[in-house]
């Protein structure tokens, strides 16, 4: 170890971080179980009085694509932020630095592990969708864009989660904040029973700024290869990214100043 330059991503660190991710029972419940259960349940309820097979399929697919955004929210935003805060509270990053493991090494391996877990969660989610739901067959560009959008959303959730944990530094405070953000995103994203169209104007204005809204509201159009104006969706990513970036900047400034 001594004198040997440590690589940024190694199989031992990935294995360590992956165990860290899977060691949190909440990510299994909220990141895999709940999205599958909610997608099946909500779509069944939503189509119960619809007799047209094509409409049924469209509704099921809309619900399925929207609920899918819960996976990065639960695994990355909630799971990562809470674990990171727990580590900060215990002084684990400091201990790791004393062993020569720089923060960037931890963060990179953590990000890759989160990605692996999220990919596995999506595989299970799609399997459940194919087996238990009547879904529209996507066009190639639809599935690629869905993966890309989920990936970008996950990166932003990772940045936001890291910033919240670095600012709060305590498990309890971080848990409270990310739970509030999680439910706010669920409600505004239309995953809690109130669709974007039924929301009051103020809520609609806030919802428009969040990427989750577009997974629920519009992604069926992209999925099936319909014409779609991407500008509002891109703007929502820019807004969400800017908010996460500003929080991360504040957190890193506080760290530099030793607060």
């Amino acid at each position: 170890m001594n004198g040997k330059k440590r690589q940024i991503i190694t199989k031992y660190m990935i294995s360590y971080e992956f165990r860290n991710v899977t060691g949190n029972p909440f990510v299994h419940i909220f990141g895999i179980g709940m999205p599958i259960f909610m997608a099946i349940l909500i779509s069944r309820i939503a189509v119960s009085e619809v007799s047209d097979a094509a409409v049924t399929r469209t509704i099921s697919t809309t619900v399925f694509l929207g609920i899918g955004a819960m996976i990065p929210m639960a695994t990355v935003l909630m799971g990562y932020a809470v674990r990171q805060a727990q580590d900060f509270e215990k002084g684990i990053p400091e201990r790791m630095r004393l062993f020569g493991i720089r923060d960037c090494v931890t963060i990179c391996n953590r990000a890759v592990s989160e990605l692996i877990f999220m990919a596995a969660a999506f595989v299970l989610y799609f399997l459940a969708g194919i087996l238990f739901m009547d879904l529209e067959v996507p066009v190639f560009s639809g599935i690629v864009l869905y993966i890309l959008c989920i990936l970008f959303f996950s990166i932003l959730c990772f940045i936001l989660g890291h910033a919240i944990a670095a600012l709060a530094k305590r498990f309890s405070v971080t848990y409270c904040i990310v739970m509030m953000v999680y439910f706010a995103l669920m409600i505004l994203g239309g995953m809690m029973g109130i669709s974007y169209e039924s929301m009051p104007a103020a809520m609609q204005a806030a919802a428009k700024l969040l990427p989750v809204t577009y997974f629920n509201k519009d992604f069926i159009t992209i999925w099936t290869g319909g014409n779609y104006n991407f500008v509002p969706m891109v703007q929502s990513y820019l807004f969400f990214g800017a908010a996460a970036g500003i929080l991360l900047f504040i957190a890193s400034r506080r760290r530099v100043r030793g607060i």
Partner: protein
Amino acid sequence: MENDILLSVENLTVCYGKDVALQIESPILIEEGDRIGIIGSNGAGKSTFVKSILGLVNYQGSIRTRLTMDQIATHMQSNEYTDSMATKYIMEAILQTRISRSQKLQELIQYFEFEDCLRKKYSKLSGGQKQRFTIIMVMMQDAPLTIYDEVTSGLDFETRQRLVEKMVSWYRDRDSSLCIVSHYYEELEQLANKLLILDKGRVIDYGKKEELFRKYCGRAVIILNHSGEKEMLFQSYKKLASPAHLIALPCETEEKEREIISLLLAHNMDYTRSTTDIEMIYSNAKKCGGQQ
């Protein structure tokens, strides 16, 4: 920086808010092969000194070293790890090797009798096991400079003794330099060859153990458990500063020493003779504030 000097500290000031936690004026040089015991009461600045070296606190002054940070291995007072997995995986991630593939790591695990703990989570380990877990990883680093900050604090007497015995034996034939912060002087008797004595954030003295003993205690010291009878018997003798339960009699010459011992034998009294006792060095150095 000279080749055998690993680290030098000079004109160092560390403040916590408005309080000066540590102030070092004269240079402290850590050379290759040094085994430095850092002693002082609570709040003396021992851990602050360690944290300054590691860059964990802001300081003013100069700390120069030819070592990179990964050439300084550190066992902090409190070491925490994740609880999501067995200690084996934490060890493998930190050390970047599989236990089964590293002979040296297997030897260390065996040496510290840690085999049964590898499958346990960190929170399930006892205090002694937790310390051994970090010690194994610190020793695996095989760094030119290793720092142990109160490695045995909070452990029971037997666990402490066994751990120190292992450490003494491990480092006996090695040339790595050590900085050991401890409140247990008997540990430092075995591990340290130099002492850094701190008090209220100031350096009282720094030097070789034997030299400091000669400086503050003389050639040898006879140490007795305190009693009224002994106090009466030696009332006309010069005494050194010592804890209240002891009487410390300096022996400037062999004749003086023989005289004291004869008197003790005549009265059938127990005593200890020392030429390196750290408690005596500390008490007397502190009493005269390093000026002698």
